[in-house]
């Protein structure tokens, strides 16, 4: 965290505010006091909301996870019973497995497309900026809107995307991509790449921009090939950004819900149900709130590990 400059700091180092006349010391002391009182007042509303709608629910989630907690009826304490049940719940294990599979597919895919786009728009001039804006445009579309759009695009017989591919001889109008896990996953991945790649491109591009051009030029003059420059200069210097982008897509994929709820409804045969989707079903269709809370706690732990990993990377890159 950057050192702060505040009135109290400048009080001990008058040189810092040399051009402003010094305040009388009594007024300064009472100001300092009233400032810290005012500080408490101005942060209070935000902290109140965070407490009621975030910290309290987190605590409640952990408490609930130790109980059998139906929506209606008697709440009973069962210790870690929900957690042990989770590891024997075939549906949960399958959802967790599918979420991992989705993450393992999505992350390298997004990274590849993101890097490719970032390298493509890394050129001076107006055209590159326009292309950058176009690739970023889907990022502002919500997952729900994007999901219903792509759901239609790939509908058997009706879908324009299917129509185009059929005309190109790559598919048939009556193909039902949502009828198989591979097809459903492919169309969801297509939608997510379209919607998210622009974001990755932008982050990677800002990472690329921080690499001094002179460095590349010097290497080129020394006889390095383009691929060598990429491999030995750009890639190592881009590592913090790459790590950040990776963490973003891992976290986003582990929390996937909207795209599967909307585009596959978990089908075919409940094979595309993600972890969050399973928690949703347990809590709001099965009304096992305690068990849902335990699954949420497990999800929270996994995500906290991913975030901690992110902070570790960023801290290391700060000091290098």
């Amino acid at each position: 965290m950057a050192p702060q400059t505040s009135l109290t700091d400048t009080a001990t180092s008058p040189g810092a505010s040399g051009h402003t006349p010094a305040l009388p010391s009594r007024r300064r002391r009472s100001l300092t006091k009233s400032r810290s009182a005012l500080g408490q007042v101005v942060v209070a509303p935000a902290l109140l909301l965070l407490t009621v709608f975030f910290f309290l629910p987190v605590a409640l989630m952990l408490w609930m996870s130790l109980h059998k907690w139906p929506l209606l009826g008697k709440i009973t304490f069962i210790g870690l019973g929900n957690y042990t049940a989770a590891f024997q719940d075939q549906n949960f294990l399958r959802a967790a497995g599918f979420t991992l599979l989705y993450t393992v597919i999505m992350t390298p895919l997004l990274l590849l497309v993101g890097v490719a786009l970032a390298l493509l728009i890394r050129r001076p001039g107006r055209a590159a900026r326009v292309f950058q804006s176009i690739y970023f445009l889907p990022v502002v579309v919500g997952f729900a809107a994007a999901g219903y759009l792509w759901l239609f695009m790939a509908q058997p017989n009706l879908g324009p995307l299917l129509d185009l591919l059929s005309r190109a001889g790559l598919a048939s109008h009556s193909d039902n991509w949502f009828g198989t896990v591979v097809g459903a996953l492919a169309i969801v991945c297509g939608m997510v790449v379209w919607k998210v790649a622009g974001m990755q491109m932008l982050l990677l591009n800002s990472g690329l921009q921080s690499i001094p051009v002179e460095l590349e030029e010097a290497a080129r003059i020394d006889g390095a090939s383009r691929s060598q420059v990429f491999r030995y200069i750009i890639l190592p210097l881009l590592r913090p950004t790459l790590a950040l982008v990776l963490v973003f897509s891992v976290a986003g994929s582990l929390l996937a819900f909207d795209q599967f709820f909307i585009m596959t409804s978990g089908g075919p045969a409940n094979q595309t149900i993600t972890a969050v989707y399973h928690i949703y079903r347990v809590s709001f269709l099965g009304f096992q709130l305690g068990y849902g809370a335990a699954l949420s706690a497990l999800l929270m732990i996994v995500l906290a590990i991913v975030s901690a990993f992110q902070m570790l990377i960023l801290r290391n890159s700060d000091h290098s």
Partner: protein
Amino acid sequence: MSSSASTHRAVPRAVWWIVNLSLAALFLYPFWVVLSQSIKTPTEAAAAPPTLFPQSFSLANFGKLFSNENGGAGFAMQLGNSVLVSIGATLLTIVLSTLAGYGFAKLRFRGSNLLFFATLATFMIPFQAVITPLYLVLHQIGLTNNLLGLMLVYTTFNLPFGIFLMRNSFAALPASIEEAALVDGCGILRAMVRVLLPVAIPGVISTALFTFFAAWNEFFAALILMTDQSKYTLPVALNVLSSGTFGTLDWGALQSGVAVTIVPCIVIYILLQKYYVGGMLTGATK
């Protein structure tokens, strides 16, 4: 071509143009689909195979969308809900995160660093994990199925990032500016409004954009917390349209609904893209 951009010639110029134009076409294609689909006649919108270009221009899909057939509560009402909740959450987030950001940056008190750290720690916890207890908390205070409740929830979800951005904006200002205003006889709050707020405007706009997009597009919490169709926001309204409770699924009306959901985001993005992009990069790299 200058030699200063070394990747400039990594790809020949013509190839660069061809690749980018093809990719741009791919990225824009879904937008073309939703636009063309929503301005077709309802019959043409349901045609199999679909037509690539609309054969005639019609607003009938929008007419069907807004006519009262979305489960008793019209799409217009749900659009209104989205506008209300998104703008309300945005305004509230701006005010609260500006105040808190200023407090954390300039009005430090005993424990303020700890509280700021606690605020940042919420980044590590996905809101999807707290949705069940959140539902119970809202239920206890009578705010389930309530637009004010949803607005407060969206505000809470976006506050940490807003506070973070605003604290950075204020922390970047030298204390001397503020002190000069105080010497001139302004109170602390007046100093804040007159002197600091104008400098913090880019941060405010970034916070506003993030909150608005997040609230406008949020699906999961709205799906769970709102149970009455008259309280639905647009993403959940699309879900109702797609489930086709009234006979067969009306793809034309659904795509018009998607268009109504997408267009405000695109317009706002095009108008204010430098703030959005700038804010995102600050948030990601700090």
